[in-house]
């Protein structure tokens, strides 16, 4: 559009006139951001040079239009005080008056010298508040369960089933894909090693124990922590931002009962099912790779599996699933409810929720390994 007129050079903004031995700098044209933008550096330099001359008359009456950018440009060139001789139109007076009493920007509060210590202390305190917060949340949930046991009509079935669908059924695809690929890779690498010793048939033992006891539950838990944990935290966080949580509170519906409990129960049910699913698909992938690499028949693999893997391993995997599922939901809800109504907090809350959930899932796995070290291994 030709509507925006860009003066070809900075000299289009003023002209110098001298009459009766008085030199006058007449500013012309539009002093607005759109017109000035291209010429700001040159104009600042030129005006600063003119401002050095004390006896120069500044004539602003011929300016067509001046906005705050133009005013600030002149003000900076004049070194933040009016020049001795300044000719203004009455309507320009107002804006120059404003810039005259411009307050200084308050200094941001400085860090004190003890900041490493205080930062460490606040970290420790934060950890403490998270711990107590989680314990309070668990206690609240237990109280809710007690209440619901006596008021069974109040059990939030719909929410539980919605969570079961969202965290369980909708996660089937991704857990299957990851499980299948891990199964193939594990089987392929192990069978290469086993072939060297001629211990081909032990592939069933390796895959059976490692997948059913460790990999299946862990893969499912880590995927669910990333997938459902983050969405739960973000959902609660957005509900805080849009004041939906406050609306629930004033209706007398406790958050823990309607939002947290269904998620914890839902994921507590969905997780062991996902564990079975992931383990089964991973074993399928392993079986496929074993057949291709070692020529081990499917019939042999399936018939040998129950003999070499004690059933306790399956129960262990399911147990891990239940514990991990409930923990992930708890952590996600804990962080979600702590989100403050701003975008920064939403992002930070979701990140720490997922990181914490994955870390805790791995810690739980380690604890299971220690506690059940003599269970299910021949």
């Amino acid at each position, binding site marked *: 559009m030709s509507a*925006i007129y860009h003066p070809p050079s900075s000299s289009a903004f003023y002209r110098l006139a001298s009459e009766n031995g008085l030199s006058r700098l007449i500013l012309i044209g539009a002093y607005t951001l759109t017109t000035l933008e291209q010429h700001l550096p040159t104009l600042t330099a030129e005006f600063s040079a003119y401002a050095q001359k004390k006896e120069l008359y500044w004539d602003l009456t011929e300016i067509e239009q001046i906005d705050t950018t133009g005013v600030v440009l002149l003000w900076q060139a004049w070194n933040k005080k009016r020049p001795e001789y300044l000719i203004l139109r009455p309507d320009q007076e107002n804006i120059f008056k404003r810039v005259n009493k411009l*307050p200084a920007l308050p200094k941001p509060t400085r860090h004190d010298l003890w900041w490493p210590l205080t930062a460490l202390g606040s970290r420790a305190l934060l950890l403490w508040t998270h711990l107590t917060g989680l314990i309070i949340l668990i206690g609240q949930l237990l109280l809710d369960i007690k209440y619901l046991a006596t008021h069974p009509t109040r059990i939030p079935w719909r929410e539980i089933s919605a969570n079961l669908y969202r965290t369980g059924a909708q996660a089937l695809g991704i857990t299957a894909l990851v499980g299948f690929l891990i199964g193939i890779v594990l089987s392929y690498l192990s069978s290469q090693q086993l072939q060297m010793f001629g211990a081909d048939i032990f592939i069933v033992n390796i895959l059976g124990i490692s997948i059913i006891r460790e990999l299946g539950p862990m893969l499912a838990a880590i995927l669910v922590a990333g997938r459902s944990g983050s969405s739960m935290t973000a959902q609660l966080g957005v509900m805080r931002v849009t004041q939906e949580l406050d609306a629930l509170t004033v209706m007398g519906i406790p958050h823990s009962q309607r939002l947290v409990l269904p998620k914890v129960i839902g994921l507590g049910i969905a997780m062991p099912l996902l564990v079975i699913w992931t383990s089964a698909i991973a074993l399928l992938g392993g079986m496929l790779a074993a057949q291709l690499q070692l020529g081990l028949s499917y019939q042999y693999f399936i018939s040998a599996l129950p003999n070499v893997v004690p059933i306790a391993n399956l129960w262990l995997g399911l147990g891990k699933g239940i514990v991990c599922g409930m923990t992930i939901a708890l952590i996600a809800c804990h962080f979600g409810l702590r989100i403050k109504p701003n*975008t920064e907090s939403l992002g930070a809350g979701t990140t720490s929720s997922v990181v914490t959930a994955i870390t805790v899932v791995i810690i739980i796995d380690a604890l299971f390994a220690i506690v059940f070290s003599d269970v299910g291994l021949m």
Partner: protein
Amino acid sequence: MTLIGDDQNTQYNNVQDCIIEVKGLHTQFGENVVHQDLNLCVHNGEVLALVGGSGSGKTTLLRQMLGLETPVHGTVKVFGCSRFDCDYNLLKSIRIRSGVLFQSGALFSALSVYDNVAFPLRELHSLNESMIRDLVMLKLAMVAIDTKHANKMPADLSGGMIKRVALARALALDPELLFLDEPTAGLDPELSESFVELILTLRTEMKFTIIMVTHDLSTLSTLSDRIAVLADQHVVAIGNLKEVCDHQHPFIQSFFKAAHSQTKLAKIVRR
């Protein structure tokens, strides 16, 4: 103003003084027709208020003027060109020349008050930091925000202050065109009156065109030059307060009946 106005007239001569021109606009959400053959012209330098019942498409129209939504049929021209068929540089210059005050402020919650107002200025990449500082402080002074609030975060501000900081941000680039979406919604009468006063004073100082959506009758009467009433999917009446009041459309009658009861309230209070 006349001098500049005339100057700009010649620039927009093809649209006859329309800074925003809406022609044959048709908007539809699913089965729901919001606008049908809607025509509107916003004159240069005026304050135009958009009025209408809820669901009449005021905010949608505003969003289409801002280029946030694409109309199904028809054109919305701002500064004489449509947002959807002009090149990038032109679009950028349109965006720089218009400021928006969103209904709930839409301040960036990750940035402080100062940085919020400085953000559009910094994005130009042509102003130095000391100029930006002076401009921001000037804008904050204009909207009567004390300097001690400059380093606060939006979450620590009250509703009225959020509106004023948002206005300061909308004014940051000295726009010629200002969009106000419910400028006084959620403010108490005293605050909303001072907000209207503020916009009035700024208008005399900075000379811009304002398009606003409002339900508040006192804002409507004190601030607007013309009122456009949206009903039945198009503009049923446009003109100054008196002309619009005299219109016989049922929506206008009931809308200003409420106004009538408000003056009644004023009478009671006076008594």
